[in-house]
């Protein structure tokens, strides 16, 4: 295929430790907005976050109750399956460990569910042990609706489609159920370091 003389992709910087960029990824300085549907606008007065499924006591919190949980600010690299990676992104949110404290379950899987119907599945152990948050702040500001605000799941060690926008809860499950992109051929697990983009990779 012809090379386009002088063409370089958007925002690519080469002055970075290549050990931080997974295979097949390109570095970006932007924060691209990718959506599978219209941006939802649930008023905070109606917003709830639920833990349901294979739990003894399903629970649901209002925005104020959710915000009362201890939160933390973390800096992580994120990797989108569409090949861009963004380093040192700063998020503020509640650790999923905190939200699951006291929740009795034998579930091994989680299905994250969101406004607009988006879902994604992750093993329970991949959202616990300090590996995931429900994030409501990005770069010191409230999370923008187009980036998933009021709150999104943040699971930075997996491809970013697993960090579901407009998150409304986690369904704990004994069996794994494929979420939106997983149903359409994306990898069930999605480890960027093993380049697990598509089913069968």
């Amino acid at each position, binding site marked *: 295929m012809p090379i386009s003389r002088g063409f370089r992709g958007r925002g690519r910087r080469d002055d970075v430790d290549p050990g931080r960029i997974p295979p097949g990824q390109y570095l970006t300085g932007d924060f691209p907005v*990718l959506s*599978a549907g219209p941006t939802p606008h649930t008023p905070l007065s109606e917003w709830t976050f639920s833990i349901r499924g294979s739990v003894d006591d399903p629970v649901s919190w209002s925005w104020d109750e959710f915000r009362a949980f201890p939160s933390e600010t973390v800096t992580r690299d994120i990797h989108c399956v*569409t090949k861009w990676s963004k380093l040192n992104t700063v998020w503020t949110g509640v650790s999923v460990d905190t939200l699951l404290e006291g929740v009795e379950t034998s579930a091994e899987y989680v299905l994250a569910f969101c406004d*607009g119907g988006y879902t994604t599945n992750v093993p329970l152990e991949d959202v616990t042990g300090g590996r995931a948050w429900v994030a409501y702040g990005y770069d010191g500001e409230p999370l923008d609706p187009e980036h998933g605000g009021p709150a999104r799941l943040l699971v930075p060690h997996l491809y970013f489609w697993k960090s579901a926008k407009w998150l409304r809860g986690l369904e704990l499950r004994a069996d794994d159920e494929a979420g939106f992109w997983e149903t359409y*051929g994306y990898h069930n697990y999605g480890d960027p370091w093993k380049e697990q983009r598509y089913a069968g990779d």
Partner: protein
Amino acid sequence: MDALDGNAIAGQLVEVFGAELTTATGVCAGCGASGPVAELEVYLEAPGTVVRCRSCKAVLMVLVSRRGVTCVDLHGFAQFDVGRRIRE
């Protein structure tokens, strides 16, 4: 990020179906709305292309390109009729 319309996927549809399909008519399995593919709500900026019903937002079609091969899922349509071909 505003959604586009079916004109934006005309090229992808030629790739997958080998035919110009923006004038094809689809019926939404969710709400029954019907109209040309060109008028559907299209989200291009995603791990795949998501085509939704403009009325009820149900997902009608999803196109995913996997290493150069495009797969299409049409199950959101109750019906899908290929329109008259404009030209080869």
